[in-house]
């Protein structure tokens, strides 16, 4: 039954999405121009493997392409639940959903799946452009490591996403979690450059951010083909983040729904 509900949400979102065809084309075009920007930045500096990039064995363009593609999953994990909840509130369908005999945890997790698929589509577009148009080498990829890192990234950031949805339930607009992830995490987590370029004190702060481990592990799994064993430090860190963030996020979200039911603000936006 859980899978049927997930499928129902995915199908619904897909049908809504294809009803706005032009938006999808714009998304592809936007991705292409974004890639192009970094391609020319890389050429500006001579496409070198700088000392900071040596552990990954690739030039800046290959590094940043994978990071920004992969960051789609982070954004998905964090932003999806809050965005979906907000969307259902605005459309007026949230109450109709919550009146059904389905657990709130099932509803919110089902909501996140479309975003996961959407992020996968985005990542595929990035990688297809990167590999076929810009010659990024993806042949060393260790697929098992990639899948494990991906799963742990989605679950740990999913926990943060549930916290973001908690804020949406209570404040309706202006939740700080997505802002923190999209600005601070992007800066400090090594999305646009390896954290090795930071001064020591910033590197210490970066260690407390899950995205740091996600990006590093993904870079090493794709560009160097590292196995799970070699990536055990990053994977352990992501496991701890997932184990803490996902259950606590779900708990906070359930509390927020209960609070909204208490003050009658479930459908307010």
């Amino acid at each position, binding site marked *: *039954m859980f899978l*049927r*509900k997930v*499928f*129902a*949400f995915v*199908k*619904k979102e897909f*049908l*809504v999405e294809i*009803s*706005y065809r032009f938006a999808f084309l714009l998304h592809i075009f936007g991705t292409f121009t974004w890639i192009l920007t970094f391609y020319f930045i890389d050429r500006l500096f001579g496409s070198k493997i700088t000392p900071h990039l040596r552990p990954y064995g690739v030039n800046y363009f290959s590094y940043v392409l994978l990071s920004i593609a992969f960051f789609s999953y982070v954004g998905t994990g964090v932003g999806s639940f809050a965005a979906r909840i907000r969307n259902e509130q605005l*459309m*007026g*369908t949230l*109450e*109709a*959903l*919550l*009146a*059904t*005999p*389905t*657990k709130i945890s099932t*509803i919110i997790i089902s909501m996140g799946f479309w975003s996961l698929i959407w992020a996968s589509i985005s990542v595929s577009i990035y990688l297809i452009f990167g590999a076929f148009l810009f010659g990024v080498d993806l042949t060393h990829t260790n697929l098992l490591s990639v899948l494990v890192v991906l799963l742990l990234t989605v679950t740990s950031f999913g926990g943060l996403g549930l916290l973001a949805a908690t804020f949406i339930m209570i404040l309706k607009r202006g939740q700080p979690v997505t802002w923190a992830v999209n600005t601070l995490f992007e800066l400090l987590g090594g999305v646009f450059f390896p954290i090795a370029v930071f001064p020591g004190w910033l590197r210490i702060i970066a260690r407390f951010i899950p995205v740091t481990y996600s990006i590093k592990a993904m870079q090493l799994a794709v560009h160097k083909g590292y196995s799970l064993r070699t990536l055990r430090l990053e994977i352990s860190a992501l496991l701890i983040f997932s184990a803490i963030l996902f259950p606590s996020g779900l708990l906070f979200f359930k509390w927020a729904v*209960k609070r909204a*039911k*208490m*003050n*009658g603000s*479930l*459908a307010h936006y």
Partner: protein
Amino acid sequence: MLNVIEVINVSKSFATSRLPWQKKKVTVALRNVNLEAKEGECFALLGPNGAGKTTLIKILCSLIVPDKGDVKIAGYNLKYHEELAKSQIGLVTGEERSFYWRLTGRQNLQFFASFYNIPSQLAKTRISELAELLNIAEHLDKRFQEYSTGIKQMMAVTRGLLNDPSVLLIDEPTKSLDPNMAQNLRTFIKDELVAKERKTVFFATHQIPEAESISNRIAIMDKGNIKSCGTLEELRRHSRSSGDSLYEIFAELTNGNVKGT
């Protein structure tokens, strides 16, 4: 006969303030409400705007949690068996925005059927049967945004009946329907749902003729209180009003606050 809906000592108030540091203003929505509706009964909650009708309907389907008291649906206490209680309920609101406007009616109904735990094959059959019954079959494959207000309301009724509920909760059933459509819906509720299928229909309205024409029992509400409850005959008996029409009883109990037609 079995009580399918039981509302026991339910109270609810809302505290609101425009700014977080301002003192909260408390609005009492329901005061110690006690009601029950039996199997195969059509029960009207009649009251002026702001009486607390919608709050009570939302409490019955667990969209609002009461401050005090208990609600039982088909014997399941909402506090402890929320999903089981909700599986017995169909909800119809007059809120057009409770559907996905970019999807067709059929796609919407199939989507919601999944969340009512209805197997997909059964859902398809049920949607077709209900659409035939409510005369909306020809509209099922049009986008929801193309529907008239009347068809949107019929879609809401169809969704409310998808899981073949024992209790149908309806908030303002004929709100914004034209007289013909409103009459058709009333007939459907009275003859098909209540008389034939023995469902319990619990609806909120501020339209006196509507409450009078289709309900077996009526509760008159005002400012969060149940002023009187019973059959029309019982309401007359309890009334101190000089007249015996529901208009006069309603006017007396709500201090002349007669709304609707």
